């Protein structure tokens, strides 16, 4: 449904835009209907830039980005189909107004002819869909609600659009407490039963594997490894993925150092291999692996 084909983003920087930085470098993958894909990367890997490009907030420099065959653009009709949810739920609400004003804004923009009573019914249904009690959260100011509740209200707002096909969720759980984080994740997982495609952007490996069928590991704007989640994490092939996995703190398991990388080039981005299919549904970009075009 969402198809990325060698998507590239170059930012001009420096005085008089003299130099440039490639934030996203020839990234290709697809997200199907009812599929959750985790986009995993450390800070500066370009994962949020990719999310912003899908939302039409940042133009694509090269390559193509299509949703259901149509190119991505910004504008009201596009946002009927694609919505984004971001890291900080507290700054998404105007503290002067009640939190449910975000729903009224959706009505103004997309459903001006729906009657007030009918709209209230829709809002209550959407709020129940995100496992909140309408009586508890509606008619409240943002400071009266918890981060988890606010984040779920934002998801409910996206669900009010009945043409919604795709959701970009950028670090939506990193500001939430461990006790509510899992509930928001479960909710995202349930959305796929509606046929919604979700791109879940995160730096947290544990949360990423919990949810997604497909995982894409991004480093320095390039894909180092991608494929079915159980293959990427069960049999990580790229030294960078192994390094990341070894750094995740786990309960009851000793912190091991990743095996020495040896002559590996993952410190040297210029010498990385081409992305190739190492086994079915598992792609790796490492020049050290047999089968890599650069081996």
């Amino acid at each position, binding site marked *: 449904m969402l198809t990325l084909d060698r998507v590239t983003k170059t930012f001009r920087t420096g005085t008089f835009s003299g130099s440039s930085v490639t934030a996203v470098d020839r990234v290709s993958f697809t997200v199907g209907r009812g599929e959750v894909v985790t986009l995993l990367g450390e800070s500066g890997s370009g994962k949020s830039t990719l999310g912003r490009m899908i939302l039409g907030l940042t133009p694509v420099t090269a390559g193509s980005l299509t949703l259901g065959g149509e190119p991505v653009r910004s504008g009201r009709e596009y946002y009927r189909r694609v919505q984004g949810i971001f890291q900080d739920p507290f700054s998404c609400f105007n503290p002067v107004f009640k939190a449910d004003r975000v729903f009224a804004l959706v009505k103004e923009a997309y459903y001006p002819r729906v009657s007030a009573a009918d709209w209230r019914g829709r809002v209550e249904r959407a709020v129940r869909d995100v496992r909140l009690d309408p009586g508890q959260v509606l008619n409240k100011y943002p400071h009266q609600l918890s981060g988890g509740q606010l984040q779920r209200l934002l998801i409910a707002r996206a669900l009010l659009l009945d043409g919604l096909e795709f959701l970009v969720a950028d670090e939506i759980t990193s500001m939430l407490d461990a006790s509510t984080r899992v509930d928001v994740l479960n909710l995202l997982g349930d959305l796929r039963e509606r046929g919604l495609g979700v791109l879940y952007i995160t*730096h947290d490996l544990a949360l990423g594997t919990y949810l997604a069928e497909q995982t894409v590991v991004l480093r320095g704007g390039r894909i180092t490894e991608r494929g079915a989640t159980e293959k990427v994490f069960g049999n990580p092939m790229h030294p960078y993925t192994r390094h990341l*996995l070894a750094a995740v703190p*786990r309960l009851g398991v000793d912190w091991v150092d990743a095996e020495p990388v040896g002559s590996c080039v993952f410190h040297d981005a210029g010498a990385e291999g081409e992305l190739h299919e190492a086994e079915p549904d598992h792609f790796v970009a490492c020049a050290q692996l047999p089968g890599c075009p650069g081996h």
Partner: protein
Amino acid sequence: MTLTVDDLRVHYRTLRGDVRALDGVSFFVDDGEILGLVGESGCGKTTLGKSLIRMDGRMRHVGGTVTLDGDDVPVGDDRAMNAFRFRRISLVPQYSMSAMNPTRRIGRMIRELLASRGASVDTAELHRRLALVGLKPEVLDRYPIELSGGMKQRTVMVISTLLDPSLLVADEVTSALDVSNQKAVAHALVGLRDQGLVTSMVFITHDLALTSHIADTIMVMYAGLLAEKAPANILTSAPRHPYTRRLLAALPEAGVRRSEGRLSGIEGSPPSLLSPPAGCRFRDRCPLADDRCAEQPPVVEVAPRHHVACWKV
């Protein structure tokens, strides 16, 4: 015994009344011990860390005592605390990015800092300490903006411990970092303790899995009170308090899939500390709660070094 905190009560003044952020917390930290302090946002863990070093203007010391190596720590008296800060109790703040002076090279900033405390720089020792946390001596010639987040965090750790404090308070030092930096910073903290540069440490975080790797003892707080305190391996493998159990059950581990076993969070949210409910504060969210929980449970030592505040253990 290094640090003893007895019935510490710290309130925040607001227009609507006092927020009872710390409502009678008692614990101790031994020589050489790293205490991990965990809890949800608003449970009082940062207030506790701040109380040990510097209370801000809104905070009021209502009761309780803090003792460090046998001496009373005047937590409520900002001026008297100056004798303790940096020398005996030091802090690594959460945002190291804003903890350093952006207009000074790091070497000069350290010289000035030490001069302000009447100490001079031992260059060889400084280099040794930088190496201990995995930094090259060249960072001293750099400006803070030239370092990455993880490097800045480790630089601040070295600066905070230059005078060999007895107690180091590390407040959420890893939460803004990527996993690989997180690991390096956590190892560096343990290294400071192992080398004897700090005697003991309070490591404040919301990440239970990370704490379990570096802390000797973990203390779980809930709504301004202690819920459970136990050696790290016991707390994570055999927790007794229902809150700790639910918190552990809500943690996804790398490799666990939703399709294999659905995790669940904790329903509801912590009570308001403006007027905390009587009795056990976890009662409303607790699956085991009954009539007895209307009375506040005392902290009981159920096994050696294992303290729990719950009627149901």
